[in-house]
């Protein structure tokens, strides 16, 4: 399977995502420059973390105008899996491919640390290999990860089971203390109504190799890979 990892100017988790994906058998991950205009032939698309355009304006608000974003939208509309991690999540929200927005952390400081996440829904191509209620330990690294959406939208997200991951404590309890950034409902990751676009603030690519202290990120990628491979076989 071929995965495109989009490289925006200022992306800095592009090669990390590429290496994580390449650690799965049969996956070829290629870096695609943001000035490209086609994503034909790719089975999945990853928008990696980083500081696209320096994030000097609202995070992701310039990257969404990159030439490649037309192709990302076309692919998303056609049902291709699109995964946005951290800055990639911010870009997907700015592009309107996911609802809501990511504001400054409520503590105002950048936070990089390993945290616990509870899997809320496995009825999505990004979590299907996981168990509902499973607790994952995956690091965050962001200054703007405070998820916000209008109450009406939030209600729809919950009703449709679009919230896939929430910040929780080590035992899986969703508490205020476990919320690192003030996100509404402790939301760490959501998918689109069509379920093929997924954005999350934590960095699963950072926990795909035991030498880095964990492999809890693998399940998300594994789900994505299985979702692509299954219909093929």
């Amino acid at each position, binding site marked *: 399977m071929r995965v495109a990892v989009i490289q925006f100017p200022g992306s*800095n988790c592009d090669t990390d995502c590429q290496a994580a994906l390449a650690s799965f058998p049969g996956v070829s991950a290629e870096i695609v*420059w943001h000035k490209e205009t086609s994503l034909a032939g790719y089975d999945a698309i990853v928008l990696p*973390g980083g*500081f696209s*355009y*320096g*994030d*000097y304006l609202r995070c992701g608000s310039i990257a969404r105008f990159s030439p490649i974003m037309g192709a990302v939208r076309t692919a998303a509309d056609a049902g291709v899996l699109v995964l946005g991690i951290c800055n990639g999540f911010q870009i997907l929200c700015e592009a309107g491919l996911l609802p809501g927005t990511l504001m400054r952390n409520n503590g105002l400081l950048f936070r*990089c640390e390993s945290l616990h996440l509870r899997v809320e829904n496995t009825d999505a191509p990004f979590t299907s290999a996981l168990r509902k209620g499973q607790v994952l330990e995956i690091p965050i690294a962001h200054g703007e990860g405070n998820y916000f959406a209008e109450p009406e939208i939030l209600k729809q997200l919950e009703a449709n089971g679009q919230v896939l991951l929430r910040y929780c404590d080590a035992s899986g309890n969703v508490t205020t203390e476990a919320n690192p950034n003030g996100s509404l409902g402790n939301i760490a990751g959501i998918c689109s109504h069509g379920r093929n676009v997924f954005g999350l603030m934590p960095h699963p690519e950072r926990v795909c190799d035991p030498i880095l202290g964990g492999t809890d990120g693998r399940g998300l990628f594994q789900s994505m890979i299985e979702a692509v491979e299954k219909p093929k076989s």
Partner: protein
Amino acid sequence: MANPAITPELIAKHGLSPEEYEKVLSILGRQPSFEELGVFSVMWSEHCSYKNSRPELRKFPTTGPSVLVKAGEENAGVIDIGDGWAVAFKIESHNHPSAVEPFQGAATGVGGIIRDIFTMGARPVFLMDSLRFGSIEGDSDQAKTNRRLFAGVVAGIAHYGNCIGLPTIAGEVYFDESYSGNPLVNAFCLGILRHEQIARGAAEGIGNPVFYVGAETGRDGLAGAAFASRELTEESKADRPAVQVGDPFREKLLLEACLELLATDCVAGIQDMGAAGLTCSTCETASRGGTGVEIDIQLVPQRAKGQTPYEVLLSESQERMLVIVKKGREETVKQIFEKWDLPYAEIGVVTDDGQMRVRNGDEIVVDVPARALADDGPLYSREAAPFTPPAPLDLASVPPVDPLKALPTLLAHPSIASKRWVWRQYDHMVRTGTAVLPGSDAAVFVVREANKILAASTDCNAIYCKLDPSVGSRIAVAECARNLACSGAVPIGVTDNLNFGNPHKPENFYQLRAAVEGISEGCRAFNVPVTGGNVSLYNESPAGAIDPTPTISMVGRIDDAAHITTQAFKGQGDQIILIGDIGSELGGSHYLLAIHGRKEGAPPVLDFEKEIAIHNALLGIIRKGLVRSAHDCSEGGLAVALAESCFGTGFGASIDLGETGQRADVDLFNESQGRIVISVSSTDRSQVESELTSSGVPHRFIGTVTAVPDLSITTGPSVYIWPVSNLNEIFENTIPSLMEY
């Protein structure tokens, strides 16, 4: 705008002494232009010329079989790490800018050191930093200022490192009154490259075009190098325009473009524009190439209209590079810069006459022999004051304090307390190589593309250096090596950042000389070369000079992932062994400072032979898979080391030191060197003990890792017990609660 006339006042304002000006006249055979005066001023500043320190720096051991690029040859040294791979690394200070504008000062310090590394053709892979501030405790105006500086510096480092996507994986932060008004910000970067990728900062090839790429030149950072070579005063705030403004996004583009460019065969030479900007990069590349360089100021991309040639030459705007392109390959170069949306211009040519010549259109404003500027600057051997070694601490003058109270107080000292508040603001995991996170003895980083594991540590106990600069500097080297050994690494190279006061004062110059000699001795003992570094003098506020701070950063190599070792205890029932002696020295200790408010006595004795034997013995048992945890005893002594090994594990430790024949506070808090706390599984204990015995290093079994989460230490008849959670809370909460203002 007409240039001012060259008067003695103007010369003095440029920091040139009458003798130095005479030398300028004899080099030129005429009076300099205003621009030339500025060019000499920055190039002959301490920051660029090392005129006060170079004779001392020659004492460093800089060679060895693994050295591919020696200290001082290029922007950073390069060390072979095997299989055709090499590392380039260096540390550099940004103290003065951070004192007047902490956020941008620190940010651009990070940006500058990253450029030094990718200028070598290396891909930067991680950062470290060594920071020092005045006390952040209390409500005084000074404490508030120090907190503002601390917060600003950390935010600035985070801003730059996080945005550019380099993990900050280790470092140190100390708080001491001597840094009030003059904080230290030393930033380290390491990059990785293939041997054949080493790039040179030389203007080679007569007739080759000279390209400028990166940010447009503005008026920021005007003559920053000269500013950095003065003492800080109350009026230094007016020097804020000498601080540059960083743009990490631009630097990310520049980094990627330069590495892409260097992978082609188009580049004859490359040099970043750091201190002294366009001036330094043109004359240094010409001097290294044995050529001349001629540029036209009017072709330089500029941010503001109406800048004078003087301003353009002396600007220290960030994120700029000078690239000497092989003639005929210009189109490829332009395509790469255009891909990355970077401003660029062909601004000149390499010439054969050895001159640095700057035109402003038709007018020649600078015409100086490049070599005279870059390499033939003045050199001074300053006077060193005679030094009397400090008297040993009179223990009778130190009233014993109950260890039960002293340990929490030590853990609450901001220099010892957890720095999580700092490193949580740094992305320390990007590039997915950080195998040991900040907070252990040394950070460990896996360089996937090279299949190599590196460890790095940065250390300097400036109290020891204040009391005895020679001993303190040797200890700084030994502590770095000890931290590496605790992580399972063998040292491969050192970079140093020499932070001192005004070298015209003989006591300061003695400190500089003694530190260089001490570091040299340490590096020879551990058989590691100094690959480069930085000298920052004039670190003085109106209250006086800082404590001498020769920061050492050491890089090591770990041969096998199975050897990676951390400080945290791993399992209940594991046996705790102290390698080294119980120790007895309280001179210069943090116990004396934090509990008794005294900075005195003689620092601990350092015995290199014993130290090396200990490191080798530890590495030997680590390689045999016998060591579950290892942590060195440093500030706060054995008790602090034991507490730190318990933190975050859920375990406690039950320790019995036996009958030591000395006071309990001496047992627990002395800072005698060469001591490492290890834990091993109970089945391996006898093998470990016999291995250590046959290595001839002192060691003793001192206790057990317990499921009961208490730290219990027995010494003689006395038993001290602390719940680990209480200690951990103090350790973790100190800095966050001080910073909630």
